[in-house]
């Protein structure tokens, strides 16, 4: 699409629940992000990317559970997610599921935040034996949140980072997932954070039970 005029601009938030530094979860997140940005560019769309390391918000997320509200450090992060056109969500596999930190973050998001929002799921783990974590844990979570989950999720086992791609197909899976997410984003209007006050029901309608 060299020389083509961009058809618009979208934002992606790329959430990594990796705990190490460097982290293979962050590595997968970045690869998925790049693939999505390429996919959107092919569709003539420019992309703003915000990368989020949940590790840095771990205390604030825990405080939200205890106090019932998001503190001033967490609120901008929640707002970033609410305003993003797509979410890339990647977790390490812990005990046959997503990590507690990963789940906790989605537990403190306001209800409805991800409704109809395109989401690309990814997970990392020691061996390929855990790869069904995508379909047994992540996909049901995002289905429950009414997100639109890209058909391809990407699981990367440790060994795949050092194997011939012809053997593992990791790069191909990443590329396909990125293109799928890009298509879902391109098919939607830009996202905006819900304003409960702008959409509040007038009293007569509340009283008539038509809300």
């Amino acid at each position, binding site marked *: 699409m060299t020389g083509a005029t961009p058809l618009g601009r979208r934002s992606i938030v790329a959430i990594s629940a990796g705990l190490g530094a460097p982290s293979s979860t962050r590595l997968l997140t970045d690869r998925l992000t790049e693939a999505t940005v390429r996919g959107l560019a092919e569709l003539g769309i420019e992309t703003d990317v915000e990368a989020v390391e949940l590790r840095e918000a771990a205390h604030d997320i*825990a405080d939200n559970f205890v106090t*019932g*509200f998001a*503190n001033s450090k967490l609120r901008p992060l929640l707002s970033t997610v609410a305003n993003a056109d797509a979410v890339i969500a990647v977790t390490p596999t812990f005990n046959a599921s997503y990590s507690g930190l990963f789940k906790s973050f989605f537990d403190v998001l306001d209800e409805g935040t991800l409704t109809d929002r395109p989401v690309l799921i990814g997970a990392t783990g020691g061996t390929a034996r855990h790869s069904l974590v995508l379909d047994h844990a992540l996909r049901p979570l995002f289905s429950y949140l009414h997100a639109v989950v890209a058909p391809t999720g990407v699981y990367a086992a440790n060994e795949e980072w050092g194997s011939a791609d012809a053997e593992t197909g990791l790069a191909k899976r990443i590329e396909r997932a990125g293109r799928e997410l890009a298509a879902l984003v391109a098919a939607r209007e830009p996202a905006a954070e819900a304003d*409960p006050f702008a959409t*509040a*029901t007038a*009293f007569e309608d*509340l009283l008539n039970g038509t*809300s």
Partner: protein
Amino acid sequence: MQFGIFTVGDVTPDPTTGRTPSEGERIKSMVRIAQKAEEVGLDLAAFGEHHNPPFVPSSPTTMLGYVAANTSRLILSTATTLITTNDPVKIAEDYAMLQHLADGRVDLTLGRGNTGPVYPWFGKDIRDGIDLAIENYHLLHRLWTEEVVDWEGKHRTPLHGFTATPRPLDGVPPFVWHGSIRSPEIAEQAAYYGDGFFANHIFWPAEHTQKMVEFYRKRFEHYGHGAADQAIVGLGGQVFMRRNSQDAVREFRPYFDNAPVYGHGPSLEEFTAETPLTVGSPQQVIDRTLGFREYVGDYQRQLFLMDHAGLPEKVVLEQLDLLGEEVVPVLRKEFAAVRPAHVPDAPTHASLLAANGQPIAQ
């Protein structure tokens, strides 16, 4: 402007001694705290309603009737009365009864309640929370303003030819505040009736309270009750004071760290930065409280949570001395100095009666 205290009535072990008061001790202690509030010159005391331990005040009008008999000037209020799970007919009758016994020193704050099982225990469903608040209050309002009510709704047995008794004192129902932390529907409801809006405020960042109050004011004006800055707003607050602020922090920290609502989470310093909680000298409390006006506008009622998290009664009474003697007189003067003349006070029985002897405009 009115200043008072509100309590949730928790029975919590004192984390510094491990001692837990009995329910009886706590209930009697709440009465003494209310009496002290009157003695130190505060305007009102408001009691919560709960139906699950460790909270004791399940029966607000029993409590308020007793407090009324033991005070002479204090306004008796609630924080909050459950409009969802109580029968509106009983609320209409209980509070009208209380008005007569307390010579009109009564208002109430309605809330939905956020304890899931309380709804089914009372035969309701928490998913109907907003709908219950809307329908039940509409009936309550009619029961107080109409002599004979014919009514059918979704959530209670129909009424035909029903008259709530006793009738409100002097034909003037108690002034109603609607409390909500995050539901625009409740601010909308308060605005529609021209009732007060109470923002608990104490566990939430200022910007959140600001948005709720701003919305209520706008809708109050929309429904023709006056200008937005004439809407009736109340706020919660939470303080712990000692003359020396370091002493206040040192003494309050174990209560904060183990408090039922927010304990074991953020530090005292983080929480005071994020919410209206102020732990320090009376002057710090004065400065912080005056600052609330900057984001909610001129408001009518400020309540403080003083007795919770296991604080001993003796300490609470000392806190009330400081509040009544050093803080509130300054707040009255400072708030009054900046308040425009067209901003009304919170309605009282006397002011509503003087206005026209008729129930508040709807």
